[in-house]
């Protein structure tokens, strides 16, 4: 591999990693920090992409559509938590698995009913549609750089919020002992509703951001779901920093494995995960 190709792949890896973090960020919040096993996370990623497509078709403006989609996702999140998830906090964790798998079915069916099964695409917003030449042949789209920056921003905000603010402490405390948090005079139910909804919204935002650079297809959320879990778990449950580093690691490993050991590339992130968990059974940065 030449140096320039190496550098390009390095950037590819980082960019992919950042995108992974964006997709996994909501899961980090909901699953890692709050301890709610939401398998419908991937579905919300899909819903985000479909929503933005739908609104772009109708409004023509990507920015506006992104905003509307995020708000809708937030509302869906609130609804999900209020009506369903909330009933299960006192129950076995695995009931959440069952519940959210039921939700995946529902989301998939609705997607089919509302938008059909054809692959869809959203154009890159005009303001970000240029590209920066990298080598003779290769250029780098500005939109991808924009998304990468967005990821870094979200990571920073999340890290600050969870680790440094009182709100973050309350959320974490809720994961550990809900009753006790309530005994401190905090409306943990409302807090959890909001944070859960934010997690759901982040998933949808990731879908929105990914829409212009990928294809919008049924089941797009399920493929990504496992990778998200890999990221959260390698990083260590509840650690934003861990998830961020894990996402970059997965991005880099996947990218380089694709070109260096293509025979193993399908297994590479699993090999990575098994390896890390064998050495550190609690992930890289678990508390």
């Amino acid at each position, binding site marked *: 591999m030449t140096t320039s190709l190496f550098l390009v792949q390095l950037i*590819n890896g980082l*960019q992919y990693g950042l995108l992974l973090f964006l997709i996994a960020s909501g899961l980090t919040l909901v699953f890692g920090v709050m301890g709610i096993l939401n398998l419908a996370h991937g579905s919300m990623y899909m819903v985000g992409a479909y929503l933005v497509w739908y609104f772009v078709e109708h409004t023509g403006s990507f920015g506006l559509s992104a905003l509307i989609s995020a708000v809708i996702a937030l509302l869906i999140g609130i609804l999900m938590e209020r009506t369903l998830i909330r009933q299960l906090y006192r129950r076995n964790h695995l009931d959440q698995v069952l519940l959210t798998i039921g939700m995946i079915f529902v989301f998939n069916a609705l997607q089919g009913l509302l938008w059909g099964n054809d*692959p869809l695409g959203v154009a890159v917003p005009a303001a970000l549609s240029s590209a920066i030449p990298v080598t003779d042949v*290769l250029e780098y789209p500005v939109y991808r750089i924009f998304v990468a920056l967005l990821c870094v921003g979200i990571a920073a905000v999340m890290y600050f919020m969870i680790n440094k603010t009182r709100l973050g402490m309350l959320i974490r405390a809720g994961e550990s002992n809900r009753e006790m948090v309530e005994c401190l005079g905090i409306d943990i139910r409302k807090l959890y509703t909001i944070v859960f909804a934010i997690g759901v919204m982040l998933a949808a935002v990731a879908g929105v951001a990914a829409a212009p650079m990928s*294809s919008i297809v049924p*089941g797009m959320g399920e493929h990504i779901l496992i990778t998200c879990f890999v990221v959260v778990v390698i990083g260590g449950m509840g650690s934003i920093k861990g998830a961020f580093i894990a996402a970059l690691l997965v991005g880099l490993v*996947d990218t380089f494995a*694709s*070109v260096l050991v293509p025979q193993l590339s399908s297994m590479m992130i699993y090999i990575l995960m098994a390896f890390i968990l064998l050495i550190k059974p609690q992930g890289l940065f678990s508390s």
Partner: protein
Amino acid sequence: NNEPIKVGMMLPFSGVYGALGDATRNGLKMALQEQMSKLHGRKIEYIEIDTEARPERAPEIASSLLNNSEADFIIGPVHSGVAMGMLKVLRGKDTVMIVPNAGAGPVTGPLCSPNVFRTSFSSWQPSYPMGNVALDKGYKKVVTMSWNYGMGKESLDAFEESFTAGGGEIVKKILVPFPKTEFQAYLSEIASINPDAVFVFFAGGGAVKFVKDYDALGLKGKIPLLGSGFLTEGTLEAQGSAAEGVLTTLHYADSLDNEQNTRFRSSYKQQFGKASDIYAVQGYDTGLMIASAVNQLGGNISDQKALIKALESTTVRSPRGDFTFSPAHNPVQNVYLRTVENGENRVVEIAAPALADPARGCKL
């Protein structure tokens, strides 16, 4: 005999392959609707089951259609793995199985069977002619790329077969784990190799993503993109301008200038509100084929041998041009070289006229 003819469909109606299943079904129903008058008064009853593209469920569903629903025709599937599972149950049985898409070589190769027909293609067919096209264009060094699964690998092999036979060289063969759609690393590598052209097999959502990435990373203007036609089937709208100018070979093209095609396209558009694609055509041809056989037999399809004979001798007046069946029950059909223009697959030329699959290993 006034019982309805039972047509069982094993197609994916949800998930990644959902669009293909939908289109196939639409085409099939449309054809049988149109041919109603030739069915000698027999009605059609459909039994539609979603395979979810899960091969491990295929034998069971096939046996359900065979033994429980007692279907007269079993249509399916889209996915090659599912095709194998179906074959396991249906091969050599009385009921006719018609494959409207899956290209797996063995279906009309080593595993061919009197009661199994295919109205689509073998994965060898659409890709093989592209090798010669590439040679004609003067490409010497080509990178090939596809998902690492049966259909993809068979497509690349077919291309390689004709391309290397004519003196071309495959400088790199990239197999991407299915269903991964992160192509950036591979495309960067291709850019650094800078071959004369790239030949790919992708379909559906992956095809959309690939073509968009190919454009976004700036390769499009610099390295010609060749593909098996599925790259631009049912995906053009989503690909937008990124697909313009991509060259593909397939047994069909939107712009084919024949009466069947014009009629088919306009009435499909009218009925389903969207443009038709190859999957719809294949479904449609399956319908035509059934109708023609029923017609030949005067509505009585209870005699298996006669039915198979009738099907074998059918010439399908398809939107893709007329085609017949090879002894292995695979279409003998034209393969067209197409290019994307204004969001449509335009014919450039006939890349291989009346091309028959070699049907390696078939003893029929």
